[in-house]
């Protein structure tokens, strides 16, 4: 049984929660894709922690019946790192907006890739600051006018795929929230992947981004063909820098990079359950005597 039904509802549903998103926002679809993926993968919600920052996308774990660490703007990845290293048995998903992840938290994004913990990053990339009412984000396209960028965005857009590739992220994908089914499948692959999985999701903001609409994303994207080989890094680079039409799907995947938890020698016992090492303590004190 793969899809939730009235007899077997999706355990991640939070039906009584009032939603803070605008009608028609791409975040609803992305939330559904995520819940579908979690359901189909049979993830135990008590072992799942969804970590987020602040922004519209970052509200996602508020609407998900699972453990949540809704921390500070830009700081979801450090918190996610601490959670994973503290108890590696937990499934950890970090989820936030493009501003949160690539702007305020940009440094953490770079270094989280370098560490390569086994976790999934889902970025709600609406190419705008939604919650703060429509300023440019790092991924806003040049020329877009906003109340602050009155002459249009002037900065080169941040390219999360190319940056991730440059840092040798082992799993890099792009999805489009309008395509619920495809997005769900990509998220499933990302969560199942052992290592740091980056998923940048185009997410239409129907209120503040009048440029990158559902239609715009449909017209300006395409899915990578079935014979595309995601193990080829140079080809992935070529895909990552395409601008004419933007590729969707898993653009890079490399199974062999060691995860940080293993490199640190972290075992399966959560840190909270570790026994105190009395003998080692006595030995250490003796060294000072």
């Amino acid at each position, binding site marked *: 049984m793969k899809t939730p039904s009235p007899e077997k509802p999706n355990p991640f549903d939070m039906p009584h929660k009032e939603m803070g998103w605008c009608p028609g926002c791409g975040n609803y679809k992305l939330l559904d894709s995520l819940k579908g993926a979690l359901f189909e993968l049979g993830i135990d919600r008590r072992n799942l922690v969804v970590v987020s920052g602040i922004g519209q996308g970052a509200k996602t774990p508020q609407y998900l019946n699972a453990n949540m660490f809704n921390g500070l703007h830009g700081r979801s990845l450090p918190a996610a790192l601490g959670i994973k290293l*503290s108890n590696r048995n937990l499934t950890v998903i970090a989820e936030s907006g493009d501003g949160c992840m690539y702007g305020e938290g940009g440094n953490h994004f770079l270094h989280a890739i370098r560490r390569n913990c086994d976790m999934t990053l889902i970025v709600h990339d609406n190419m705008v600051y939604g919650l703060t009412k429509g300023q440019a984000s790092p991924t806003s396209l040049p020329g877009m006018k906003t109340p602050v960028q009155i002459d249009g965005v002037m900065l080169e857009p941040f390219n999360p795929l190319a940056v991730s590739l440059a840092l040798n992220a082992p799993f890099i994908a792009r999805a489009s929230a309008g395509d619920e089914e495809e997005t769900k499948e990509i998220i499933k692959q990302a969560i199942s992947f052992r290592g740091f999985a980056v998923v940048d999701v185009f997410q239409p903001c129907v209120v503040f981004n009048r440029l990158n609409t559902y239609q715009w994303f449909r017209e300006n994207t395409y899915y990578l063909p079935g014979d595309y080989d995601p193990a080829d890094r140079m080809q992935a680079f070529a895909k990552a820098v395409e601008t004419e039409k933007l590729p969707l799907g898993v653009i890079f995947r490399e199974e062999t990079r060691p995860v940080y938890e293993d490199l640190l020698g972290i075992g399966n016992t959560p840190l909270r359950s570790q026994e105190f090492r009395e003998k080692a303590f006595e030995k250490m004190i003796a060294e000072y005597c």
Partner: protein
Amino acid sequence: MKNMRRYSNDISIVFGGAAGQGIQTIASALVSVLKRTGCHVFACTEFMSRVRGGSNSTQVRITGRKRHAYVHRIDFLFALNADALEHLKTRIAPTTIVFADKSQVPSTDEGLLVDAPITSFARQAGNPIYSNTAAVAVALGLLGIPQEGLDNYLREIFAGKGDAVVADNIEAARLGYAFGRQTALREEIEVEIAVEPEKNRPKELLLDGTAAVGIGAVAAGCTFISSYPMSPGTGVLTFLAQRSHEFNIVVDQAEDEISAVNTALGASYAGARAIVTTSGGGFALMEEGISLAGMTEVPLVVHLGQRPGPATGMPTRTEQADLNLVLHAGHGEFPRVILAPGTFAEAILLTQRAFQLADRYQLTAFVLTDQFFLDSTGSMAAAVVKREPIERHIVETDEEYMRYRFTPDGLSPRGVPGYGKGIVKCDSHEHDETGHLTENFETRRRMVEKRLRRIKALAAESLMPELVGGSADAPNIVVAWGSNRGVLEESLDTLQRADLAGLHFSQLYPFNPSVATLLKGKIVTVLENNASGQFADLLHRELAVSTANRILKWTGEPFSVEEVVEALREI
């Protein structure tokens, strides 16, 4: 006819030279040997913020009883280069004896210059790199401490380098020692040092302030540290990294302090006992994280080693000017605990206490130290190293679990993800009992009240300040906090005035309600290493205690015993 030079039970030896010349190595070898011989030793160090060159010095004190303070006076100065004399000029008195290679240091304006060809002893023994050994030996010869202790020490530390290296070092020691003895005889230097016979000696540790904080963290069962290097806080990161395999401590060097604090909070949310270590500048970057800890009620321990600010300030110097920073860190209103150890024993105990309080009250506990404290070395009785029980206050959750459940004492049972049937929602927004964000005004009112309510229970078990000299009924009370305990104690001891008493605070916030009675009707003097008197202001704000005198120092150096004695004479 020469005057006999007598030194009795309070000797100050200073090694001065450039970074990279080995003064630290010399001082630590000397301190180790003296401690094993049964002397009371204390060492502190001042150095420039550079890796090579510059002018640095380390003071080694040998005293009749345990001391934990810096003295301005120098009895024996080992000048490894000419700059050292210039650097330490104001501390060289007619009674100072300067040991230096005359080819490097031709003369001194003050004091007696003794030509000590230390490098040539090393060369004679086989290699100029044995100079450090020869220097230690000269000092021991001068003091009349048997050479045997040094020989044993050399055998131990060079054990891995082969017999030849050990033998050469012992030869360099022999030459240096003989020179030290001869010099003492020639110059009629008589040194009297109380040495405790071995059988009477309690087992003692020799350590620095950094190790004391580190040992405290290990003793508390700390399992997680994420930090970004910044002097003088880095030492605790290094300490725990060095011990990480023995104690299964996860160590992550963060990309910045913002990451460090948020990572530690993530780890703590998932159940680890987590610490971050930093200095003022790095801590300033962590502030939003401290506020997050306040809102989410996630336990955290912060070690802040102070150095002079603002901004980069003086990276390797000392100050106590970040009290206001930790007191007010983070936007919004939430409780916190600030501890400031004054001795190494206190650092071990209070670091454990910080973890205990953080877990019990679900808040941030600060351990506030400074460069002087962290870089000082001394001995303490092993019997004092106590391990407090590790109480985590973590509950197994059930289906109905709510992270922020309202309870009479404001403390909601703490669940962690993956332990029990419930889910744990932790939120930086104002939230309801389940942890979901809310804008309900009544819930907000109750949540703020819930978070602040614990202050009362916390204050009731706050540590009382300790009397460190004089009697409680003296009309004048001199207050110190953190690292100034030793200098206050020694100064009061020197003065022996019945009208003066010293009170040392190792918990700076919140105050135990009983503290007020100790200060009631007293003429209060506050001694602190900053320019404005931050602690004096805190006493006023919290306890309505007015300070009659503020003894302040903000040059970047610690107080010396002499200047505190001088300042207290005015009272």
